[in-house]
């Protein structure tokens, strides 16, 4: 099952630099090649492993491409109805306050049908972590327009490009969440380069740590490609993301220690 000119000198346990976390199952993920969902799953698993909290975590999968997240993360998980993950998480955390509770949600899930649950769980300051994969599209259902689809961007329900006057503006839900008093740490990251992956992982780790300290809602937006929905190769898609999504959804921390980061 392995390849490469095996260099047995180097390939030894003591020389290990990186290996897929044991908190990931061996199931091959159903995601399209190059999809950022996989990367984000991976780093969540790594954070859980590093914090040594596998026993203490309950994750909520959304309805969206990542609906099967529970097949890949080796932790107890629930699969929520479309958009409702923060409601589940609210109850779980309040009923089991010593656990780490996180939701993993797409942009359709979190910013369209789930808007109310997102806003109110943040406003209540629920002590949960939301990992929000923003790929500007409804991946799972075949590439329909999401609330986060950029102006002019094509999708199967905006085949001539998103026309703001008819279809509304792209929604920066994360900025709304940051403005609510119940959110404590809000950041926007990406997973297309090693540096960005590292930052995102750090953000997720910070979020979990703050959750332990009962600081209120922690919210990590992850910009990610949906190469299938965008109809590009993964590498093209990442490039497109940098050029088109980053200007509208700039990366960086938005709220730290309960305070908006001034820009």
């Amino acid at each position, binding site marked *: 099952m392995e390849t490469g000119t095996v260099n047995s000198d180097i390939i030894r346990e003591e020389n290990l630099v990186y290996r897929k976390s044991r908190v990931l199952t061996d199931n091959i993920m*159903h*995601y*399209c090649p190059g999809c950022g969902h996989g990367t984000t799953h991976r780093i969540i698993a790594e954070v859980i492993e590093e914090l040594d909290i596998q026993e203490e975590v309950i994750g909520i999968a959304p309805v969206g491409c990542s609906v099967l997240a529970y097949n890949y993360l080796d932790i107890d998980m629930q699969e929520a109805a479309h958009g409702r993950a923060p409601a589940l998480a609210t109850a779980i955390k309040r009923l089991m306050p010593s656990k780490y509770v996180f939701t993993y949600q797409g942009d359709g899930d979190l910013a369209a049908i789930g808007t109310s649950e997102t806003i109110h769980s943040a406003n209540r300051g629920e002590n949960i972590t939301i990992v929000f994969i923003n790929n500007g599209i409804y*991946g*799972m259902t075949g590439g329909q327009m999401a609330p986060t689809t950029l102006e002019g961007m094509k999708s199967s329900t905006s085949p001539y490009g998103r026309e703001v006057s008819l279809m509304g503006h792209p929604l920066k839900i994360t900025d709304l969440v940051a403005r609510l008093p119940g959110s404590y740490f809000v950041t926007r990251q990406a997973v297309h380069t090693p540096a960005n992956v590292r930052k995102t992982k750090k953000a997720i780790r910070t979020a979990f740590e703050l959750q332990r300290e009962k600081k209120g809602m922690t919210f990590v937006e992850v910009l990610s490609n949906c190469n*299938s929905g965008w109809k590009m190769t993964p590498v093209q898609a990442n490039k497109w993301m940098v050029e088109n999504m980053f200007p509208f959804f700039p990366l960086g921390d938005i709220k730290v220690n309960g305070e908006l980061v001034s820009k």
Partner: protein
Amino acid sequence: MTEEIIIAGFGGQGVLSMGKILAYSGIMQDQEVSWMPSYGPEMRGGTANVTVILSDERISSPILTSYDTAIILNQQSMDKFEPTVKPGGLLLYDPNGILRHPERKDINIYRINANQEAVRIGLTKIFNMIVLGGFLSIKPLVKFENVILGLKKSLPDRYHHLIPDNEKAIRRGFEIVEPVNVLNR
């Protein structure tokens, strides 16, 4: 006359559109048609198959468990659909990627090296049209002119300049199909 056909292969092989053109051709000659895909959760890749029925009468079930014809384009589909061809029916396959060739003796078996041919003539995108041509040479259910009409109908206008290539591919299919096991009538 009713012809019940399954076309099966990988996602990107044009299985669904081959079925669509066939169905449209049927419409062009006033037949009843149905085209029933199996749709799955996969976004990209995976297997795909479509049941196409052409008939002079109202079509009953669009979903079937046995077929007059199976057009098979990969190994998984061979495993799944070889047994479903009705005795005396037709199995047409592209040998590319096929490890276990069909073995039934009670059906007509034809082979078409469409993949290879498509590469050869530089029309890889319409490899499926070669297969279609092969099928129609064995079972001329629809007239060639109706296939072309069907093609026009099922292609958006902006692709109509590709019709000559498609035509060529179909004709090529007529030529390269080879019998493997042909029953006596």
